[in-house]
């Protein structure tokens, strides 16, 4: 068993994650996607797309044969070089991001930096301890690294069929390090935390005042459950990662419904595909988005081309399903379960207990429900969209609890706090959007 402890590993992981982000940003610049966003606003989308596209690429390569590191990084490096070469003037202009801060804003920004620094310290401090980390996500990352390819036997050994994005980012990090370092790799989850904050801030700032943006970003990043998954003890679960992708997907869906541009639709569809390959709950979100896009493109605008383009996400998703089918990887988590409406009231009570847990969520959920009841007249279309996505996703979790064969007293307390991570950024955005000035 190897126990690498060099601080060099942490620095290399940070550089790897920056490299992946730059690849994603380069991808956006090369194809002129999201061209009205500046460089800094593109960064969270670059990170999300970069991680997802890299994972998809490694998944394809990893089934043909053993990974060759130069073959993996060459296209990423070429994309960055090409983007700098072809889009240099545009990037030079986009790097400028000016906004004025009053003393209150500066104080709030200082609080955000302190909060981020604390979470980063926690991510660095301890090795992997999260159950799902060593049982699912980083377990397979390690196994794929040790085997050198996507070994289907691993899914049978570990009795799991979870999708591969988080696994393969971990594998890529280990390949770059040349060793398994299950402390350094947790910086990936800290980066997700960071990018969630950046994407949340830049999206709210595009719609509301700078003060509101900074305040609500601080409130998001200081939620104890998000801090835990971003670095403190529960780094290693994939739920914050899925919450990040769901929020990114919401922002692009909202942009697309407003402007109906292909330059938004393509990255949106890619993010939908990536979301469905982070965790299986991501597929629910993807399906909801697809139905909305279908309604918007066909019924409202009669644009069949847009509808076809929106189906890009199906390519990696179907590829994953074919892989599972060819290798007989199918575990039915609901085997033995049946719809039991009698447990509905018990589920609601257990859910309510989690929603009211101040130590996990502060006052997020009580304020969210109050805002729905008393401020619904203030809700603009984008907040209504966030609410629609959140409600349907929430309903799917309720349906799972009604069907699962696992006793409700075990299932709900064990999983609902993590499922809420998928929805927390959307809920907080709804609150921020409904609050009067």
């Amino acid at each position: 068993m190897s126990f690498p402890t060099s601080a060099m590993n942490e620095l290399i992981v940070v550089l790897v994650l920056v490299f992946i982000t730059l690849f994603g940003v380069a991808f956006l610049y090369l194809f002129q996607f999201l061209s009205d966003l500046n460089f800094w606003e593109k960064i969270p989308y670059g990170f999300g797309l970069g991680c997802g596209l890299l994972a998809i690429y490694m998944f394809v390569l990893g089934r043909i044969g053993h990974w060759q590191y130069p073959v993996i990084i060459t296209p990423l490096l070429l994309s960055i070089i090409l983007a700098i070469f072809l889009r240099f003037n545009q990037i030079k202009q986009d790097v400028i991001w000016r906004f004025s801060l009053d003393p209150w804003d500066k104080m709030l920004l200082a609080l955000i930096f302190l909060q981020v620094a604390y979470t980063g310290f926690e991510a660095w401090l301890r090795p992997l301890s999260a159950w799902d980390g060593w049982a699912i996500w980083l377990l397979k990352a390690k196994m794929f690294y040790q085997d050198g390819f996507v070994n289907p036997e691993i899914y049978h050994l570990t009795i799991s069929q979870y999708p591969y994005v988080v696994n393969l980012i971990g594998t890529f990090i280990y390949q770059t390090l040349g060793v398994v370092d299950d402390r350094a790799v947790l910086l990936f989850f800290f980066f997700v935390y960071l990018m969630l904050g950046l994407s949340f801030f830049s999206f709210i700032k595009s719609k509301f005042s700078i003060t509101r943006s900074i305040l609500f970003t601080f409130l998001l990043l200081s939620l104890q459950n998000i801090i835990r998954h971003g670095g403190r003890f529960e780094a290693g679960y994939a739920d914050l990662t899925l919450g990040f992708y769901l929020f990114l997907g919401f922002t692009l869906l909202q942009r697309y419904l407003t402007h109906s541009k292909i330059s938004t639709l393509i990255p949106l569809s890619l993010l939908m595909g990536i979301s469905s390959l982070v965790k299986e709950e991501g597929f629910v979100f993807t399906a909801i988005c697809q139905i909305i896009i279908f309604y918007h493109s066909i019924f409202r605008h009669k644009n069949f081309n847009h509808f076809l383009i929106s189906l890009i996400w199906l390519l990696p998703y179907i590829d994953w399903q074919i892989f599972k089918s060819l290798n007989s990887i199918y575990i039915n988590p609901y085997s033995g379960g049946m719809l039991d409406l009698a447990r509905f009231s018990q589920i609601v009570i257990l859910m309510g207990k989690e929603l009211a847990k101040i130590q996990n969520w502060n006052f997020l959920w009580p304020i969210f429900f109050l805002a729905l009841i008393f401020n619904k007249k203030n809700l603009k279309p984008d907040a209504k969209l966030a609410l629609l996505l959140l409600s349907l996703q929430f309903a799917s979790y309720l349906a799972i609890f009604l069907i699962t064969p696992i006793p409700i007293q075990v299932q709900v307390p064990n999983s609902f706090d993590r499922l809420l991570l998928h929805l927390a950024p959307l809920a907080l955005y709804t609150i921020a959007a409904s609050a009067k000035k």
Partner: protein
Amino acid sequence: MKAITVLITLWFILSVSRLGYNYLRAFTSEKNWIFMIDYQKKTRLLGDDFIFLSNIASSCSISSTVNIFNPFPKSDQKLFYLSYYYLYPRKLIFSPSNVLSYKCNE
């Protein structure tokens, strides 16, 4: 509306207080973690299972088959997954036994 504003204000105050508490904790109870080596940290986080698996990893080669005799082989999911995490690519066989032990077959 006033109730929401009051709650958001309370939320903000709670968050700032919690941030302060977290920093206090980082400088007091958590600073010990900085001076621990990796093995000590993992033992503290994962307990006796980690020590048991460390012993297997140091005594059984990568190509060996390891029989893990476990009092609770089917219900002990933690040991099952931790074993694969720390011992793969060794082949693992889990068997019931009264005492937790192991045997390497090279």
